Structure formats: C-alpha cells, structure tokens
C-alpha cells in the first residue's frame, strides 16, 4: 500500500486532508505530522510515496522541509505537494522552485487533492 505523509499544523486541516485521501480509489496509508519537526522524525521511519505539506508552520516551515527533502539522497525523489492559502503566493512559488511537484490553494475540493495525488502516485518518480 502506498504511504502518504501529511505535514500540517492545524488539526482541522489535517483531518480534512486525511479524509480526502482516504477517499482515493486505491487505498493508501496516511501518516499525519503536526509540525515540521514531527515530519523530520517521521521521514526515516517509513518509506513514503508522497508528502503533502503546509508552508506556514511553527518550528521549521514548509520551505525548509522541502529543501531538506530535496537535499537528502534518501528522500530526494518523493513527490511533494504544497497546500497553502491565497496571499502566500511568493512563498509557494519558492516552494515550487525548491522542487515541489504541485500545489493546492486552501480551501480546495477533496477531488482536486485526489486528482493531484493520483497523478503523482502513478507518474514515474523524478530522477534528478
């Protein structure tokens, strides 16, 4: 079963992301991290097939997390989706520049998330 890591500090948003992903046709396993630090701890524990991350978080933010993932030989190829809000365009674009594969703007429909995720999970991994 494919495994998705959700990094989001808002419990409500986390619950929504998880329930949206649980609605995928092919079942996936979801792990939730409530901070960037928690994500750093989670990464070595499992082999993830996709990361969905918020940008604006305490301790380390989404950009710092993306930079870490893309600079680490073990995680470099994991597809990454940013979820952000209107108004954070500059930071979001920087995230894309750092190597995020897609972004969604909150509030989004569960189907939008599922479409993006389905696409990234079936597409061949990046090989940079």
């Amino acid at each position, binding site marked *: 079963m494919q495994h998705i890591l959700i990094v989001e500090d*808002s*419990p*409500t948003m986390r619950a929504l992301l998880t329930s949206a992903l649980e609605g995928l046709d092919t079942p996936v396993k979801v792990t939730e991290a409530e901070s960037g630090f928690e994500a750093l701890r989670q990464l070595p524990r499992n082999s993830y097939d996709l990361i969905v991350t918020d940008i604006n978080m305490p301790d380390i933010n989404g950009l*710092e997390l993306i930079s870490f993932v893309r600079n*680490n030989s*073990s995680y470099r190829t994991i597809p990454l989706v940013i979820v952000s809000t209107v108004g954070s365009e500059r930071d979001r674009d920087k995230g894309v*520049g750092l190597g995020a594969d897609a972004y969604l703007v909150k509030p989004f429909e*569960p189907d939008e998330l599922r479409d993006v995720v389905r696409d990234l999970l079936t597409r061949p991994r990046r090989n940079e």
Partner: protein
Amino acid sequence: MAKKKTTRRRRSTKADREFVSEAEEIVERMRNDLADLTDQCSGSGEVDPELLNGIFRSAHSLKALAGLFGFEPIQELTHRLEDILDGLRLGRVALGMSALTLIEEAVNVFGSLLQRVDDAESLAGAGEQIADLTNRIEAATNEAPPEVGEFDSLDLDASLLRALTEYEEHRLRENLERGRHIVIVESTFEIISFEEGLSELSTAIREIGEVLSTLPAPGETPESQIRFSLLAATDLSLNELSSRLNFPSATVHSVGRAQPSPELASGAAPPVQAACEAPPEPPLQPTAPEMVHDSENLQSLKSISDTVRVDIRKLDELMNLVGELVVQRGALGDIVSRLLSDSKTTRIGSDLSKVYKAFDRKLKGLQASVLDVRMVPLRQVFEKASRVLRGLRRELDKNVRLEIRGADTELDKLIVEELVDPLMHTVRNALDHAIETPEERIASGKDPEGRVKIEAFQRGNHVVIAVSDDGRGIDTALLRVKAESRGLVGADEILSQQEMLDLVFLPGASTRDVVTETSGRGVGMDVVRSNVTALGGVVDIVSTPGRGTTISMTLPITLAIIQSLIIRVAEQRFAIPLNSVLETLLIEASDIQRSEGRELLNLRGDALLLRRLASEFQLDVPASDGRQFVVVLGMGDLRVGLLVDSLEGQQDTVIKPIQGPIQSVDGIAGATELGDGDPVLVLDVASFVDGSTRGREAA
C-alpha cells in the same frame, strides 16, 4: 495544478466541533499575544518580531479555517486580518496602537461569532458589522511596496537563500540595515532526539540575537543524523558569539555584515526589534515575567507532538470507575481479614491477602495516574486574569503593575474551572476598589504605580492562591457601619479587628458607594466565599489600612478521591478528609479550659478552640469525663479541634454529593461508602474551621 475555488464542502458535525475548538484556541492565543504586543508597543515602543510573527501565523490559521466555514463575511474578515498582520510583520504597514486596536476588535468579533456558529440568522445579522470592520482594516492596510534587495553582499549558500520565506528575507534585511553580524550556526544531532538540543541552541542564540531561519540538512549518516543551519543575526562579533554560546558541538561562521553602524556598541544586546509608532503612554509593565520564560519554548515544542486532548467528562467517568474500585477494594480487604481471623480459612486467607496486596499497589498506581491526568497548571486562569486586569487598567485609567507567581502550580481541572469566577472577581476588586488613583497614591506618599500580585503555591495537600494589592486597605469602620445599618451586626456587639474584616463576606457589604461597571454593587466577597467553600476551600483576608489587602483562597488539590479519617461519635461514623487533619491528640477531660462559653485546649502554647462534634449535630451523648480524642483541623491559617469519641482509621473515599433534605446541612460536605458497604457522612472541614474563628456560634 489546481486553482482556487470558493465552493463549500460538507462537513460532519465532528469536523464542525473540531473547527470551533481549534478556532477558539487560536483566538485565545491571539488575545494573549495581542495583549503582550500592546504592552510592548505602549511601553518601550519596541516589539519582539517573533511575537508579531506568531500573531500573524494565528491569523493565517484562522483564515485557512474560515475558508471551510463557508460564511463569506467571515472569510473576508480573516483575509483582511491576515493581510494587515502580514503587512505589519513585513514592515510594510506601520505598527501603532490604532492598528492594534483594530486587530483586537477583529479578533473579538471573530471570537463572538464562534459562539453562534450554529445560528445562521444571527450570523447573517452580523454581516454588516463585519463588513464595516473589514473595510476599516483594509483602509489601514495601505501597503508600502514590497521590499526588494539583494543579498549579494552576503556569503550565503544559494540553497539556504532559496529556502527563505518572504518573512525570513524581511528579517534578514532588517537586521542588515541595523548593521548586525549575520552568522550561520551549524550543529548535528541524532534524528531521534534532535528537538531538545536544537531548542537549547536556538534559545541560547535568542539571548544574544535573533534566529532568522532554521534549515535542516542531512547529516553525515543521513538516515540517523540531521544537521541544522541556523541563520542568525547578532551585535556580537564572531569570537564573542562563539564564547557566549558555549555550545561545543556547534560551529559558527560569519556570512557578512552590511553598513556597520558605529553607534552600536558591541556587547550583549536584545534582538533587533520592530519599532512601534505609538508615543509611549504611561509605562505599563510587561506582565507575568514567568510566563515568557525560556524553558517554555522547549515545552511548547514538546507539546506539539505529545499531547492528547480529552473531554473532561471522560476523565470524570474514569475517575468514577476508579472510585468504585477503591470501594470494592475496601470490601475485599474486609473479606481478607475475616478469612485470616478464622483458623479454618487462614491458608486461603493468606493466599488472597497476597493477591489483595498486589491489587492494592496497582490500584494506587492507577488512582495516582488518573488524578495526575486531571491536574492542570493555573497558567491559563492567571493569563485570563492578567488580560482582564490589562483591559481594566485602560478603562479605569489606573496605573498598575501585575505580578504573577507560581503559574505552574497544578490543581484538578474541575477546581481550576470553578476558580475562574472568584479569582476574576477578586482581581477586579483589587483594581477597582483597592488601588487608588495615581494622584491619591502620590498624596499618601506611595509609588504612583500600584501593584497587584497573584500568587499560587502548594501548601501540604492544598493549594493557596493569594491576590494581594498595595492599595488603600479595607475600611473596617465603614464596613461595620454598613453591616449595622443592614442589621447584620448589633450596635453593641464587640468585634475583633479580624471579625470586622470578615464582615466583608456578608452579602451586600461593599464599602464603596459608587457603582462601577467593574465590580457592580452587591456582588461581593460573599459570592467569592461561597464559590470557594463549595470547592471545599476557605478564604482568608488580611488587610492593613493604607498598606493593602491580601485575599487568600486555600483549596484542596483534587475533589475526586481523598483519604479520609474515619471517626466515631455517639455511635455514628463520620469521614474527615485527611488533607485537612493536622494531627490527632488524646486528652483528659481536665485538659479542657473554659472561657466565655467556649472550650479551649492549650496546644503547645496556643489556644485551640474545641468543638464537640456530638453537640454540633445535636447527637444525644453526655459529655464524657474520661479521655477523649481531638482531631486538629487546619485550612489556610485557621485551626480548630474537634472532640470525638474514637478514631477508626484511614480509608480512601470517593465523596458523592447528597441529594435531598440533608443536602444543605451545615457541616456536611457529602457522603461516601466505606469498604464494609456502610454509607457515612463526610464532614465539611471548611465550615468547621472558619465558623470557629468568626465566633458566631459559641460551642
């Protein structure tokens, strides 16, 4: 890539509750942070950028939540709120009291809307008010153009620069403009335990500068190690910084400095702060130094991942079950002793006794854990009090400094909740009635700035919460006049100073004639006392005219399971909560001294007032002439001795409230079941100890 849509999605009621509870938490946090920011702004005029950024992040989270909420005006409001805060933290909007007041208003409006999430009509009715507020915020957000600026002069790794958020870039720029050194502090940690070390390092850097960004990178063994590069700004030189940091595993290197400004002396300096536009108002001291302690950073980091939120009712249920088990254990203990005392069953008795002992140990552990889970620090209540006080300070135009101590003291959640009202009331009283105006204070040779102190500490099995002020003190003569005019005290009654002070607890005994919005009239210390008494606590009051007043509430740490002393009087058994029993004495009838109709005992040089439990409850028993037991009860500073026939030992008891006619009998707090299944009444210690000092009823 997906685009923004504003359509609504359906949410379950569970998600609804989660939304409201999360939003309420954020609103509460914003209120606290805003109050701190307002203090900084009106105080030194310099504000902590991290505080401002924290408020922005809260607004940002609210906006994301409001997107799910589906009520257009609220979405718009949170949007504007985030905009203005974004402008403030990025230095594009001038920070001043007017902006802060607007933000505070918006947060309050949002908070009140949360209360009526389910009431569509009421929400719709608020639309216009929200729209007006939204417009005003928008008008205040006339943004300066975004900053541009290159960091070419800095010897910075491109990968680090690429990962900086807009805000981090702004802080970097701001620090460069101030001519500070920009450095990178690097350290490698084990991935399983990096948080503690990293938090220590960040805290150390914050003492001498500002952390601008925390960038993680793989360590030498990427699977198990993690390296952090902290981009920081400081006034110290590289050498000074290295020696001040004293962090052996960290390496520090400089990446540059722009426009060195000669007027900045080297040496430790606070972080470069965003300036606040407002002209300094009368100095308001930052409150509660304990609340912004460094160790809290560490704590809050930890709590992010290790906390579970539980409905208090679930804990009550758990507590009840443990309570039932405790009673069952008593019954089991009885069976064990019966088996052991009969020679035919000694063997099985001793087997069962071993099992019983093991069970007993486990149950005690369970009990302690369940109790521990219910304990919460007083911090939140104190923060609330400090917010109330800050609000009042502005309203009443009084100059007061609030000190808070012991915010980490823990109490049962239930008690903490019930404590909010009496505490708020006491704090309001202190500010409204006790603290004089600055002019009055100067006239009586006092510091124009008044002081109110809220303090909590544990004393034995109780927690004492004391509110003290250095105000005018209580006018006991006036109190007496009022009490006489209400017929509460006879004109010829002789009262001691303490007894006069205690008149403040009688209903309607306020000494000020002016009705203020803050304290009102008629709602007084009597309410505070009845609230505290309902929790099994007592209120003490000490006041010196012209010097100030201290009101202490002494409360049991928990109400759930308590150890009781079982005593017997006139063939009836009673339970006395052990946490209020100071000692027990065996005395001769001849040790009792009589004075003015009271019975006293000389206890190591102090006169202890004795009360006969039998006569208190009008139980039919002749006063014994032989040896008697005295149970010395204490709460706060009050003491009383209860004369009883015999002591039967200690037991864990679960106090249950009583329904029906004896519900309101003075001196009874509730009932409990003993191990043998017999119900017994539990004495209300508070009513015994404070009734005795008032001397309203001679024994």
